[in-house]
Every structure is written in C-alpha cells, then in structure tokens.
C-alpha cells in the first residue's frame, strides 16, 4: 500500500531530475566545448582527467575567447503590444486557433477516459466545479438565498438602472485606467510625453484614452441623474438616510476623480486648471492654507502635486470608492428598492 502511495512521489522526483538535467544541458555542452579533445586520444586528452580547478580555468578561458551567443528570442515582443510592429495578427490567429483546438482535444481525451474509467455518464464541468467548491465551502445554501431573493417587478423600470450604470462605468474606468497606467509616467518631465506615446504609438491607446475620458464625464452625469431620481422620488427618506449620505460621498469622490485626473496629462489646460482649482480650495476659511499645501504638496503646483494627484487618483480614491460602493449596495440590498410613486 505504501509503495503504491509513494509511486506518484517517485514519478514526480524522477520528472524533476530529468527536468533539471535538461536545464543543465546547455551548461554541460558549454563545458565540453571548453575542454576540447576529450573525445580523441592525444596530447590534449590529459586535460580530460584534470581537476576541477583546471576545468574551471579552461571554461573561463573559453568564455573569454568566445562569449556564448545571446539566447534566441523575439526581439520586439513589446512592439506588438505598442503597435510599432504590424505583424501581430498572424501569430495571434495561430495561437488562438491551435490553442483552442488543443484545449478541445485535451478535454475530449479527458472526458472519454473519465467516462470509460468510471462507467458513468459525464457530468458537465460547470456542475463538477460547483460541486467541488460546495463540498468545501458549503456555498449553495447562502447562494440560493441571495439569488432567489424576490425583487419587486417595478425595479425593472429604466430609471432604476441609473445607479447600476454608474457602477458599471466605474468598472470601465478601472479597466481603462489600469491600461493607461501601464504606459503613463507621473513625473513633470515624462507625463506629457507618455500621454503622447499613448495617443500615437500604443495600439488602440487613443481608443482606451477616449473611453476613459468620456467615461469619466458619463459617470458624473449618471451620478447626478441617479441622485435627482432618488431625490424626486423621495427615496432618501427614513430608513434610507445612510444610503443617501454614502451616495453624496460617492458623488464627491467622483468629482475628486475628475479633478485629480484632469492634471495628469500635464498640459497647459491641466496645469492651470489645477492651479486655479487648488487656489479655490485654498480660500476656504480657517483650513484654506492647509488644504492648499496638502493638495499642492507645497505652495506651488509642481512635480509633487502631480505625484500626489496620481496617488490619489489610482490608489486612495478607488479604494475609498469601492468600499463606499460596497456599503451603498449592501444597504440597497437590505432595504430593497424604494416603491415608485
């Protein structure tokens, strides 16, 4: 019994050893070439049985004489992504086609083998996965409760969609914003050039930036529309006071997203709009100067302002927004959709 149990371990260890051998193969061929004459008998054959130190010296000498060629690789894989290389579609198509075919074939083999071995009809993969997870975490009961919760029929009316659309736009902003952050550099020297790079060089960079730009505008419009709908219908009244309060906070956060994101291109409009905007924040009584210095990272708009706006825009604001959105949704879920008039 123990021998059978150890079998997979043994097989795995053997596979590891073989893999390691393959890994070291290039190195060993290098050593062989460094010690010539091992195969043929002659005066050089003495070098074959030499000690390790001599061997190492020989290797070093050979390395110094002829450096090993660089490993062969696609010299411009990133050009495919950046859009400089036009030959993307053929490899992409090849990978998709053969990859999909391979997956289907592997699945077919597994399915046939499984049916033959268990002598029982095949269970769909989705049900298998669900069963596997449910066995461990007992999720089916709470999930049934969550999914089976009745929703009033009037909740299908279009104006109840406004908040959900805003939430969806937040997801769109997160995705496109991450894509932009891959190429964006938040320094005064490089920010402008990196946006130019996104606009001109990156594949579909213009499209992604356009979606992010118009998505931000749409998010503000929809936030306001959702708020007006809630207000007109009186859905803010008890017991929904905190839904309303978190909603206001979310609106403020959305505006903060717009304000911090506006500086990031670091062009004239961005720079001076931020100068004026932070100046307005600086005219708040009592805490004005503090707010100004906190926002600008000093008395003037500078590289520090840019990096802290970037930090706010990509870290602090998204984290806060997601937490508040979670609360907002939980409260909506708990209290249900307010009755229409």
């Amino acid at each position: 019994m123990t021998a059978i149990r150890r079998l997979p371990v043994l097989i795995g260890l053997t596979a590891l050893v073989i893999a390691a051998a393959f890994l070291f193969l290039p190195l060993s061929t290098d050593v062989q070439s460094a010690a010539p004459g091992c195969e043929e008998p002659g005066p050089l054959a003495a070098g074959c049985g030499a000690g390790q130190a001599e061997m190492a010296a020989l290797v070093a000498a050979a390395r110094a004489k002829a450096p090993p060629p660089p490993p062969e690789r696609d010299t411009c894989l990133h050009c495919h992504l950046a859009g400089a290389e036009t030959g993307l579609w053929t490899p992409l198509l090849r990978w998709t086609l053969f990859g999909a075919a391979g997956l289907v074939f592997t699945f077919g083999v597994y399915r046939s083998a499984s049916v033959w071995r268990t002598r029982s009809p095949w269970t769909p993969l989705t049900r298998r996965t669900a069963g596997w997870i449910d066995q461990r975490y007992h999720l089916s009961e709470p999930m049934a409760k969550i999914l089976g919760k009745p929703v009033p029929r009037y909740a299908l009316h279009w104006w109840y969609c406004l908040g959900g659309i805003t939430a969806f736009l937040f997801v769109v902003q997160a995705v496109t914003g991450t894509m932009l952050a891959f190429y964006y550099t938040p320094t005064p020297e490089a920010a402008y050039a990196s946006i130019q790079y996104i606009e001109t060089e990156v594949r579909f960079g213009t499209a992604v930036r356009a979606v992010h730009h118009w998505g931000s505008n749409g998010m503000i419009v929809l936030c306001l529309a959702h708020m007006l709908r809630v207000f007109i219908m009186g859905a803010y009244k008890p017991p929904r006071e905190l839904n309303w309060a978190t909603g206001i906070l979310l609106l403020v956060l959305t505006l903060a997203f717009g304000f911090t994101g506006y500086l990031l291109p670091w062009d004239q409009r961005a720079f001076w709009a931020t100068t004026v905007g932070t100046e307005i924040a600086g005219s708040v009584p009592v805490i004005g100067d503090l707010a100004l210095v906190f926002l600008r990272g000093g008395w003037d708009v500078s590289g520090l302002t840019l990096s802290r706006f970037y930090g706010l825009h990509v870290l602090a604001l998204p984290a806060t927004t997601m937490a508040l959105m979670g609360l907002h949704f939980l409260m909506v879920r708990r209290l249900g959709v307010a009755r229409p008039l």
Partner: protein
Amino acid sequence: MAYTQSSSATDPQSEDSIPFYPDHIRTEARVVAALIVAALVVGALGLAFPVGLGAPADPMETPAHVKPEWYFLALYQLLKFVPKTVGVLIPLLGLGLLTLWPFVDRRPDPSPRASRIRFVVVAILVVLLIALTIWGELS
C-alpha cells in the same frame, strides 16, 4: 418592522415580484451588454476623434483663458459674482445640507403632490446649474 418593505413585493409567490436570478440578472446582463457595445463605439469614435493634448505645461506662462472641466464651470462662474470665501462655502454648505436632508425631511409622504414639489425644486436648481455652466463656458 415598519422599515421593511410592504409584504407584497417581498413575497416570492406574489405577482408583484420576480426572482433576483434569473429574471432580474438577465435584464441587468442585457443592460451591461448594451453598455459594453456603447463603450466600444466610444472607443472606435475616439480613434477618429482623439481626446488630444494641449501645449505642454509651462508654469512661467499663464494662458489667456483658464477654465476648469465642465462640472466645475458653475462654481467657477459663481465665483465671479460673489466673494471667494462665500463662493467656496456655498457648495460646501449645500453638500452638508444635502447630506443631512433625510434627517430634516423625515415624514413619509408618498403623495404625488410632495413629489411634484420636489420635482419643481430640483428642476429650478438644475436649470440654474445648467445656466451657470453654459454662461461659464461662453464667458
């Protein structure tokens, strides 16, 4: 108990309600699909009409017309007529009042008359906001 929904809407057997899954989810999935298509259309249009970029930032040279994004234009226009401190306090106090409004207007009044009053108030405020925004854009 008074704060839970009326029983007809939460009762699974009721005619007034549908299950969250699949009925409600299906509708939401349709909306999401439409929105994804809309985002793709915006992206395609963005290829033809890029968002663009102005001149690089230059702290030494103030441009003639500095304007904020459109959603701050109303505040920007307001600041031209009132002292700065007042202009900043108006939106801040407005937001505070708005946040506390549910604690002020507590009476449950589902009558159409109440909502009509709220609608008129909102309409006046929105028209004012839009007017200020357009004014700020044109000035």
